[in-house]
């Protein structure tokens, strides 16, 4: 599995860690209660208001002392929050927020972020605000607070760039990187661009899903926003990416020509070529995504209109409450359950009885499966050869799985001459278990066939095959499979027969075997002994 996406994980953790530490410092503090602030959302709203105020002061390059902060809290409290706090209490609250929560009482704050490159946790230092000593009016010494880098990042990340701008910004970065020929970085950027397009598409699909569920949960503002984003994406993508596509293609071609005709590429150039090729594929994928966005855009529009129309109809219907009018009465008096089917009736549809047409009895009877194949052939016969070939390939691929499983048994049995399933399970390396048991159904089929036949004498089988000429059979046939395996592998030439017998004793258990539907199950099989002569 490619784990590229884990790069820069520590960087991300720094951002998340900022939030994490902030909440950790805040949630468990009892002090909040003194000010009548009980819930986490109230706490958070206060903290970020204060942070924003400090940022504002820092940006204006004005002092921000505890008095100022207290003043600010007092203002917002009086105007909006209406907690019964005196001015002094507001100052105390400010002191608490700044010193205890934001600065953790002066202790340095660290967050452990995992570094996937080195495989260890790294300490990430985080500090939101710093302070310095200032002299107000020339002689009064006060502490003034300001936002650090981390603080800025935290606050700025709360108001993200409008989504339609993100694309433009990434596109500009990409352009610069291409100009400077730093293709390795451009690969990351074009991936970002591709992801942004992907996200836009997924946003739309999500919107469609929500509209389908209930158009009312989807507000007109959201709808407007998503349309606007779409339009700007649609407008920009095609032109710009189209241009880059051409440019990158030329660069790739140039390098390839040079490689062939002039001289072997140097290491740096080979890297560039590799990166450019990646960039090219991503540009193509991005353009595909663009096409999808375009078509989904129109789907979304028509669907929203339709759903709203349907809703306007629905709002005319008056409904009673199922809980009050029906359920509660039934809870009071269960006898009514006897007649509940009257209420549920409209939901259920019964299969109508079939009528047997006696004429069917005189039809030529064939097995249904065969007919299906025949019909398939009629449909596909415009290119029969290719189809037959494809079918053959598919069959062979299917048979290969059976053969590999049998081969696994044969190989180990050959090694030990006589081997029980129990023993096989013990000596089989972990990675070969999926070969022995590709899925539950196939394994079961093989085991059943083995037990059914009990002994395979290969000379007899060979004779049988020569004497009875049959068409190539489509499905799995254990005799043929074993025979073919022995002929395919030179080591096994000496094998005369394979005997399979049951032993008493405990059943063999294989854990975590997937079945055809991908569900994991435990397989139990009675213990067998394979003997080779």
């Amino acid at each position, binding site marked *: 599995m490619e784990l590229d996406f884990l790069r820069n994980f520590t960087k991300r953790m720094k951002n998340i860690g900022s939030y994490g530490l902030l909440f950790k410092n805040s949630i468990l503090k009892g002090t909040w209660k003194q000010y009548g602030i009980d819930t986490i959302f109230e706490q958070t709203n206060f903290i970020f208001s204060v942070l924003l105020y400090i940022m504002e002061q820092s940006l204006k390059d004005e002092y921000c002392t505890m008095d100022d902060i207290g003043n600010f809290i007092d203002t917002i409290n009086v105007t909006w929050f209406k907690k019964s706090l005196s001015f002094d209490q507001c100052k105390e609250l400010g002191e608490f927020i700044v010193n205890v929560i934001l600065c953790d009482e002066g202790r340095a704050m660290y967050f452990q972020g995992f570094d996937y490159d080195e495989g260890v946790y790294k300490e990430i230092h985080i500090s939101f605000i710093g302070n310095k000593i200032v002299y107000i009016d020339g002689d009064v010494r006060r502490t003034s607070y300001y936002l650090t880098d981390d603080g800025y990042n935290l606050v700025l990340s709360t108001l993200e760039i409008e989504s339609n701008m993100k694309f433009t910004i990434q596109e500009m970065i990409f352009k610069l990187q291409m100009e400077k020929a730093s293709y390795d970085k451009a690969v990351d950027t074009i991936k970002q661009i591709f992801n942004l397009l992907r996200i836009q598409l997924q946003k739309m699909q999500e919107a469609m899903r929500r509209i*389908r*569920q*209930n158009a*009312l949960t989807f507000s007109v503002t959201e709808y407007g926003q998503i349309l606007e984003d779409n339009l700007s994406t649609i407008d920009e993508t095609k032109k710009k990416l189209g241009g880059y596509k051409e440019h990158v293609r030329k660069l790739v071609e140039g390098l390839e020509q040079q490689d062939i005709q002039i001289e072997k590429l140097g290491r740096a150039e080979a890297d560039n070529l590799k990166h450019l090729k990646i960039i090219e594929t991503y540009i193509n994928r991005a353009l595909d995504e663009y096409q999808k966005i375009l078509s989904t855009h129109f789907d979304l529009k028509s669907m929203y209109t*339709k759903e709203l129309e*349907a*809703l306007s109809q*629905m*709002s005319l*219907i*008056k*409904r*009673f*409450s*199922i*809980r009050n*009018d*029906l*359920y509660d*009465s*039934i*809870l*009071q*008096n*269960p*006898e*009514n*359950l*006897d*007649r*509940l*089917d*009257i*209420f*549920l*009736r*409209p*939901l*259920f*549809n*019964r299969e*109508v009885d079939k009528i047997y047409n006696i004429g069917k009895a005189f039809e030529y009877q064939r097995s249904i499966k065969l007919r299906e194949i025949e019909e398939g052939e009629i449909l596909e016969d415009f290119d029969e050869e290719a189809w037959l070939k494809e079918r053959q390939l598919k069959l062979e691929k299917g048979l290969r799985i059976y053969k590999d499983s049998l081969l696994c048994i044969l190989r180990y049995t050959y090694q030990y001459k006589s081997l029980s399933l129990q023993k096989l399970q013990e000596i089989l390396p972990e990675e070969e278990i999926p070969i022995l048991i590709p899925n539950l159904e196939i394994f079961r089929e093989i085991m059943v066939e083995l037990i059914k036949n009990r002994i395979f004498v290969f000379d007899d089988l060979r004779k049988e095959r020569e004497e009875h000429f049959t068409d190539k059979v489509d499905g799995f046939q254990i005799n043929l499979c074993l025979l073919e395996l022995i002929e395919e592998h030179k080591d096994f030439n000496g094998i005369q027969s394979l005997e399979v017998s049951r032993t008493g004793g405990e059943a063999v258990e294989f854990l975590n075997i997937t079945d055809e539907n991908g*569900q994991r199950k435990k397989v139990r099989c009675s213990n067998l002994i394979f003997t080779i002569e």
Partner: protein
Amino acid sequence: MAYELEDITTSQRIFYYLLQKRELREEEEILLYKAYTENESIMNLVKSQGELADSNIERYGNVIYLIPKEDNDFLGFSKALLKYTLCKSTATDKDYYLVQFVILTLLVEFYDGQGSTSKTRDFMKVGDLLNCISDRLKEGASYQEDEEEDGGLAFINMLEAYEALKSDDRGSRAKTTKEGFIHSILSFLQKQGLIDYIEADEMIKTTKKLDHFMDYNLLNKNNYNRVMRVLGVKEVE
């Protein structure tokens, strides 16, 4: 009023389609759907055929449904057939009532809203449903504690029957476990196209069809008489 022969044929075709599939979706049969929605005489013809077949023909969203009336045992489930389908052959009335109660509880959990739609939740886990049923049964039983046992059906009996079912974490399908019991009900509902039941995740989601039926039909005040019948209230003229 005179009808065109062509309209009559189309209406019969639509009705036969509905008999076969019980619903006609715009995206699957766009021509028939258009004929029904855009030509009023066709719509009336289909509706009157429906009326004769003791059913209603209604369009909810972009699907036309054939809905058997309450007393239609040919297209709809009679009580006896419902019991036969949902319960073990040896089931008593108590088991049947329990099944009915489970279905009702499921509907109440999903459609207790009073907004523009009655739907209140997106999904429900099977485990939640099991607990919910247990709680509700207890609630019902508590109402009856003081009352005299009059030989009739009591929640306490249903609760006992329900709690007697084994609980099985391994997702057994035997009907003697709670999970198996619920499983057979949910499978039935899924077969009827009312819910999506994702076994691997033990997840229950309602389908658009059920949403529509609850909003337009079952909970419609116009159909309140059904509730009155269930509750045994005689209609006052």
